[in-house]
C-alpha cells in the first residue's frame, strides 16, 4: 500500500519491490505466518503484539518501515520535526 501511495506502483511492481527489499519471495510477503515472523523480528509492527514491552507498533514501526523501504512517511517526517530530530 505504501509503495502504491508514495511511488504510484501497480500491485505487481509494488510487491516485487517490497519482496526485494526484504529478501523474500512474492508468496512469502503475502503469507501471514512468514510475515508475522519478519514483522516481529524487524520491528515493523504486528496486529497481535504481545508481549507489550518488546513490541513495536505505530510510530516506532513506521520509522523502521520507512528506512527499509527507502521512502518518506509523512507522519514520521512530521514526528521528527516536532521531536527535534531533524
Amino acid at each position: 500500500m505504501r509503495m502504491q501511495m508514495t511511488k504510484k506502483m501497480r500491485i505487481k511492481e509494488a510487491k516485487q519491490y517490497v519482496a526485494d527489499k526484504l529478501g523474500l519471495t512474492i508468496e512469502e510477503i503475502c503469507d501471514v505466518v512468514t510475515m508475522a515472523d519478519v514483522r516481529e523480528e524487524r520491528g515493523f509492527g504486528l496486529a497481535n503484539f504481545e508481549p507489550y514491552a518488546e513490541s513495536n507498533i505505530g510510530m516506532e514501526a513506521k520509522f523502521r518501515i520507512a528506512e527499509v523501504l527507502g521512502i518518506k512517511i509523512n507522519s514520521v517526517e512530521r514526528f521528527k520535526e516536532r521531536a527535534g530530530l531533524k
Partner: protein
Amino acid sequence: MGEKKKYLTRMGDGSIVYMTEDEIRADIRAGVADAADRGKIPPLTEEEMDHIYDIITMPGGIVGVDLKDTVVTSSDSGSDKISTKCCIPIDRSINAMIHERVLGADSVDIGLEDYNYKTVKGVAKREAAVLKRALNYTTMPIFYGAMPNLGFYTKPDGPIDNWAVLLPEGKIKEAMAAQEEAVEHAVRDIVFVAEQMYDVGADGINLDTCGAAGDADFLAALKACEIIKERFPDMAVEIGMAGEFVLGMHGRLKYNGVRLAGLYPHDQVKLVEQAGASIFGAVVNTNCNATFPWNIARVCTFLKACSEVANIPVHANTGMGVCGIPMCENSPADIVSRVDKCLIEICKIDGL
C-alpha cells in the same frame, strides 16, 4: 428430460435468484455487450467470459484468489463506519486501530460523519487532532477523506445559486456560471483541509465520490489534487469516483483540453494521472433490476479497459451498489467475494 440445473445467484438489489447455465451465460454476454457499447471499449474475450461463469457457479459461499494474487484495501469514511453504521460509539482514532489490528485493513481514512470538505473546513484543526492520534498509534497508512460534494455550495446552504433550479428554468448560462464558481470554492476548501492534515502527518488525502454533482465536481477534485501534489509532493492523493459516467451538469468543462462530461473509467483514470493522484478509485454502477452475472460482466469489461490503460494503481470501489456489489445494507459475502475474485483475476486491479 429433467429440469436443467439452476445456480443460486442474486439480483442487483441482493435478492436471491436461481439461473440455469444458459441464462447465466446469456446475461454475461449481454453485460459485456452493454459496457463495450457504452464505453466504446473492447468486449471481454470468450475465455474471460467463461472465467466469470466459473466464478459465479463455483461451489462455496465464499471464494478467493491465490495467495500471491492478494491485493490491498483503501476505504471511504472507513474510520467512521463502526460508529455510524454499527452505532458503536468509539473515537475514530480507535476505529482506525480496530481496522488495522482486528479487521486487517491495509489503510483507512479518518473522515467526518458529514463527509464533505465544505463542512470539514470549519473544524479542520479538530479533525487533524483525531488524525494525529490515529497516526501516532497505527502502522498502516492513514488518509484524511471527504467528498468535494459541490452541491453543498448552493443556496440555501451555500453562497451560490442552485444550478439544479436554474437549469429547469432555462437559465443555462447562469447555471454554468454557478458551477464554475462552486469549483473555485471547493478547490479552496479541499486544499485548506489538506494542508491541516499534512501538518499532522497524513499519509494521504482521499477525494471521495468525485463527480457526484457532475462534471464540475470532478473538475474540482482534479484541480485540488494538482495543487495538493504541487504543495505537498510527499502526500498521496486518492481520487475515487461517484459513478461510472461523469454527468454533464455543466457540459463544457474541460481538464487539460479533455471534456469531462461523458467520460467512463478508462478515460477518467488518464486525467486523474495527469492531476498527479497516486490511486484511482474506479466505479461502475450496479443495476438493481439486472442479475449479478449481467452486472459483474459489465463491471469487468469497463474495469479491464481502465486497468489496461492505467499507469497508477486502480482500486475498484466495491461498496454497496457499485462494481457488482448489490444495493443493500448487508452485503452478501457470496457476491462480494465473487466480485473481488473477478476484479483481481480478470481486470488485474491493484486494490479494493
